[in-house]
């Protein structure tokens, strides 16, 4: 039946992803040891076919670290702002205010990431340069912050749903005991909604990890291991975009490395997401 086929299409897509990633990735690992890949600190994939298998420069750590740092910066922005907004919308705002503000948040989520990328590069990096000394115009701080704002709606909207789902009875119980709104929010509503809030944050993380244009444009394309957010470094998605748009010659080491990085990215987001689904499942029947 047609409907079943449509449902299976999603499975086909997954299989397609796995297949299209798997074979080249396996080839990659026949040349590069998994340990060298995962723990190597030098990445020269950006140099395309100039590099051979023997160069021993296939350590993905610089890309992973850059991804990690930018994600952390984004979360440092998105989590407090998103949760603050969510609490306000769920516990403080009137129905009317909520009706106006929610679409505003959605607009933030609807702005194309290319735009965010150029805003980071051409507007926010110069502004930040007044506060922080950058060596190059590419850095991880500016795209991290902008990305943080980009994922605010994801965090805020889902957390708000989770908090609004906390039964009114719990709030009333708290108020009836003489608690004020802040205490009711922080001590009753927030803990009760925690699983949903964590799931929202996790979804925000997977969006940050997978985001491409902002980092490609604003974080630069130099892959090097650094923990300094004032420096630019290429992320996993940035590498994929760079190589794919430069059209890596099929069969060259860098061609295979593209898929290896893609597979790693896929695995990471899958893991994050499975954890979040598990988390939501586990605490769903809390009340």
């Amino acid at each position, binding site marked *: 039946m047609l409907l079943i086929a449509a449902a299976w299409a999603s499975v086909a897509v997954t299989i397609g992803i796995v297949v299209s990633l798997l074979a080249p990735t396996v080839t990659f690992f026949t040349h590069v040891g998994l340990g060298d890949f995962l723990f190597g600190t030098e990445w020269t994939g950006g140099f395309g076919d100039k590099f051979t298998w023997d160069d021993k420069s296939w350590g993905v750590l610089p890309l992973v670290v850059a991804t990690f740092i930018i994600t952390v910066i984004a979360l440092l922005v998105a989590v407090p702002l998103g949760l603050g907004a969510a609490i306000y919308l769920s516990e403080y705002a009137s129905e009317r205010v909520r009706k106006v503000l929610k679409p505003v948040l959605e607009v933030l989520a609807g702005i194309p990431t290319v735009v965010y990328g150029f805003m980071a590069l051409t507007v926010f990096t110069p502004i930040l340069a007044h506060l922080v000394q950058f060596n190059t115009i590419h850095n991880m701080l500016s795209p991290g912050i902008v990305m943080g704002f980009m994922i605010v709606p994801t965090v805020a909207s889902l957390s708000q749903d989770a908090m609004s789902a906390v039964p009114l009875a719990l709030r009333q119980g*708290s108020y009836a005991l*003489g*608690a004020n709104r802040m205490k009711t929010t922080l001590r009753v509503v927030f*803990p009760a909604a925690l699983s949903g809030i964590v799931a929202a944050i996790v979804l925000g993380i997977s969006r940050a990890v997978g985001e491409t244009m902002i980092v490609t444009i604003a974080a630069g394309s130099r892959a090097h291991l650094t923990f300094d957010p004032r420096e630019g470094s290429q992320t996993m998605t940035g590498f994929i975009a760079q190589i794919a748009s430069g059209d890596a010659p099929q069969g060259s080491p860098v061609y295979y490395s593209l898929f290896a990085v893609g597979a790693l990215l896929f695995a990471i987001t899958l893991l994050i997401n499975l954890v979040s689904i598990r988390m939501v499942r586990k605490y769903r029947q809390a*009340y």
Partner: protein
Amino acid sequence: MTHVEPDLATVPETVGVPGAPHGIRVDLGGREDRTPAGEPDGVIELRNLEVFYDKFRAVSGVDLLFGSQEITALIGPSGCGKSTVLRCLNRMNDLVPGAHVFGDVTFHGADMYAPEVDVIEVRRRIGMVFQKPNPFPKSIYDNVAYGPRVTGMKTGNMDDVVEQALRGAALWDEVKDKLKQSAFGLSGGQQQRLCIARTIATSPEVILMDEPCSALDPIATAKIEDLMVELAKTYTIIIVTHNMQQAARVSHRTAFFTAAADEHGQRTGRLVEYELTGKIFGNPADKRTEAYITGRFG
């Protein structure tokens, strides 16, 4: 929501009330003897209470004097404004968007709605128990300790406070070994008693209860009823109930409300009759009261 069917063996035998006009059998639980006579010694008084939800007048013209250390039952058909009146008594209506309260509500003679009144203090001193048990998703201990903590009460040892409250709610023996466990692990009746314990822990003077047994099975109901009678020695209790037998069993006085539509079809709740419980069930003065307690409507 599960609704539990009573185990018949535990339903207490009822006794006919002499003089009950149509033979409806109400159980006054042997408490007729305690029924105070005359005007109650008032803790909370309502005068000309009127409550609006936005433009909708939900109740109007209610005068009531709630007696100290008595159990007062508010009964009446659904939508007549019982819960609305109850929520006025500890200003829970403040939280309902669009709700406006007019008229006098006094607590020991002091205006409860005066601007300088601290609503937190009002709610601490006039506790409330809800229809569905609503324990917090915390441990049993933390549920009870919550009130004293958030109101910043100066308590000695919190452990003692929790124990006292749980004992007061006749729950201590059942939970003393699992205080750190989640309150959700308790049965419905235990949860409701936990909610009562939680309320007691803030040392209120008055406890409001809005259909506290309607989600419980008969055994749990019987336990809560016994508990109410016990609590009435210390606290003033005001209870909303749909179950007339319950009102008859536990309360000293009963207020009967109903809602009548005006010419525009607006239905406003009004107090019909407020009397000693024995009188309401035995010899109601109003035809509507009689129709209600004999089960012809509602």
